[in-house]
């Protein structure tokens, strides 16, 4: 790609050069001073500092959403909004809750990876792998950095796109993220370049992507392809109770981006994420979104189909066990003619857990010949569990084809008896039925994720039954 002007020192307001190994932790709570401090410590350009401060004002003004899950228990004053990643590993393996350690053992995760996932180590020991991938990417002109480095090294490119499809005033948590963001990924794929291997967040040396307020920006230039994978199936333990991320993706003409997430936060976390893709002419944007963990997730990956013939797809899996609420789904907004979208949602509620499908299909008058299909299937494991569907359709042209299918089913006694007669315990039988139910989406995942997800569902079912 064409190099953007890089002048890391000159671009910073304070002419401040970030020292190595500098440890900084903001005070608890939010204030303009804290936001200023965050920006200062990161040595950001002035426009980003202003962006953050404006976002903070918007955050203060916006009320909490009155729909979705119960957000009233979030105490915004009791949160550290910025901790330099180096400080996060000052925690020992022994400090992790026993359930988390047990689960790592039972899934069979290698030691190094366990410590990373547990937040004990801030670096995943895959530097060798990372470096060879990085060399390949460099040759193709692909940029793959953490967001902070992306801003430092490519400020003009970042400025052009950052906050343009998810502006701070979009919603309260997008505003919070805009004010306090740290970490996340920055990816630029040049015209016509196909990145063959999925880019995985944990192949980066700076593992700041697991932060509370990460921010990801992906730009796929014309005719390019990239598959980005974030998160992992193993539970991510964090003492932080709020995760509010923003992901913005630009799919240019004829390009294709697939973004895969497996979210398994520990069950104390509020997971409130805004994800949006803007898809130009004949481009393809795909979200594969799996939500297993967290106390409450509110997440509706969106595709904005701006160019004619653009396609968007959302595949969503949600699993809610005891005490969990997964409010998930997807949005597709058609602006251009002959655009197509498909949203497939599969949710499983178990042990009193609650899942909600929430979706929006909007077809503008300009989107003649648009096609859209929504399929949402819910599976209830027991009578204590709950599932709701909140589909919204706003269709402003007659020339369009719309399909909507929704089913709610319960695991049948007959199915259970059949599988148990084959020697499977009740928990194994239920896990098998659940895994079969989500199979159409799981088969779209990279193999290792699919295998781990199946094993994880099995563990969850054992836990909820025993």
């Amino acid at each position, binding site marked *: 790609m064409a190099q953007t002007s890089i002048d890391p020192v000159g671009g910073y307001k304070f002419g401040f050069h970030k020292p190595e190994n500098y440890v900084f932790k903001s005070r608890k709570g939010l204030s303009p001073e804290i936001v200023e401090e965050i920006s200062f410590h990161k040595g950001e350009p002035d426009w980003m500092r202003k962006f953050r401060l404006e976002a903070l004002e918007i955050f203060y003004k916006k009320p909490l959403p009155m729909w979705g899950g119960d957000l009233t228990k979030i105490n915004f004053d009791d949160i550290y909004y910025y901790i330099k990643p180096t400080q996060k590993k000052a925690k020992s393996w022994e400090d992790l809750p026993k359930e988390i350690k047990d689960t790592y053992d039972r899934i069979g995760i290698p030691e190094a990876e366990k410590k990373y996932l547990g937040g004990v180590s801030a670096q995943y020991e895959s530097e060798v792998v990372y470096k060879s991938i990085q060399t390949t990417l460099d040759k193709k002109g692909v940029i793959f950095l953490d967001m902070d480095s992306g801003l430092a090294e490519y400020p003009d490119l970042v400025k052009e796109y950052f906050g343009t499809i998810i502006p701070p005033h979009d919603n309260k948590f997008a505003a919070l993220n805009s004010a306090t963001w740290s970490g996340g990924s920055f990816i630029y794929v040049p015209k016509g370049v196909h990145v063959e291997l999925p880019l995985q967040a944990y192949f980066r040396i700076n593992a700041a992507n697991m932060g509370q307020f990460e921010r990801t920006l992906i730009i796929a230039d014309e005719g390019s392809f990239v598959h980005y994978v974030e998160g992992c199936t193993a539970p991510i333990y964090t003492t932080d109770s709020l995760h509010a991320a923003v992901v913005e993706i630009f799919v240019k003409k004829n390009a294709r981006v697939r973004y895969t997430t497996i979210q398994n936060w520990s069950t104390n976390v509020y997971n409130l994420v805004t994800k949006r893709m803007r898809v130009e002419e004949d481009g393809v944007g795909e979200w594969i979104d799996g939500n297993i963990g967290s106390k409450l997730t509110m997440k509706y990956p969106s595709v904005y189909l701006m160019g004619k013939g653009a396609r968007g797809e959302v595949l969503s899996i949600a699993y809610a066990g005891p005490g969990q609420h997964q409010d998930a789904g997807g949005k597709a907004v058609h602006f251009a003619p002959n655009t197509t979208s498909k949203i497939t949602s599969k949710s499983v509620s178990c042990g009193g857990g609650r899942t909600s499908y929430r979706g929006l299909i909007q077809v503008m008058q300009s989107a003649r010949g648009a096609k859209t299909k929504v399929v949402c299937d819910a599976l209830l494991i027991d009578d204590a569990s709950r599932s709701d569907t909140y589909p919204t359709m706003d269709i402003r042209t007659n020339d369009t084809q719309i399909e909507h299918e929704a089913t709610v089913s319960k695991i049948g006694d007959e199915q259970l*008896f059949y599988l148990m007669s084959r020697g499977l315990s009740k928990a194994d039988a239920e896990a098998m039925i659940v*895994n079969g139910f989500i199979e159409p989406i799981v088969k779209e995942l990279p193999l290792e994720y699919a295998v781990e997800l199946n094993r994880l569902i099995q563990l969850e079912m054992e836990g909820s039954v025993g």
Partner: protein
Amino acid sequence: MKLTITNLSAHLADRQILKDVSLSLLTGKVYALMGPNGSGKSTLAQIIMGNPAYEIPNPKSQIQINKKNILSMKPDERARQGIFLAFQNPITVPGVSVGNLLKTAYQSIHGKKPKGNGVVANPALSVWEFNTLLVEKAKNLGIPQEFLGRAVNDNFSGGEKKKLEMLQALTLKPKFALFDEIDTGLDVDALQTVARTIMDLKRQGTGVLIITHYQRILKYVKPDFVHVLVNGSIVASGGYTLAKDIEKNGYKKFIGNHSKN
């Protein structure tokens, strides 16, 4: 080994379906349980397998393997004791392949229980060994290998489902196998294959109970014993000649003999 059913009475939603049924099965023998529709044949099979839908109010009712009472065991525990039931109407499990079900089932029945709370038990067979076994058994039954990758009982014909039940019986190597109307919906070729497989099971030492309301399959598998169930009670027991008699004369005389309550 011996599977013994003693004084078994069963209710479903206040309706009595079985009345004081007693019978026993030995490993390595073939039994036929005959009777008109609605006589309680399928219920008996379901109860032996442990379907929790039925009530068993009589405290004298027992199902034993040798001296062990299995009546309080769950279906999976009974499967591990060596009981297998081929369902009259096999149940669909979307998204779960035949191969995956059988691999998991084989491991559950024949694998050692995992130590502690690990997920991965000591495998009874390696994945490779198991696949070899499964492919071979499928071939014996004339089941295309491609079926093993398809979802359990999903979009299969009636006859194909029956063959897949047969495949499960062959693969899981039970001590006692109950075949509930395995012969319905099968053409002659398939019927002969199924019959041959039952004889294979018998030779391997499995005790087989064939549940049927007509005699067609018994032409190909000669049972060692025949029991006739009418209105929830065993009304006649005998050898193969009993089955031939039923083919000729139907169930009329048994229905007449049996006092209704």
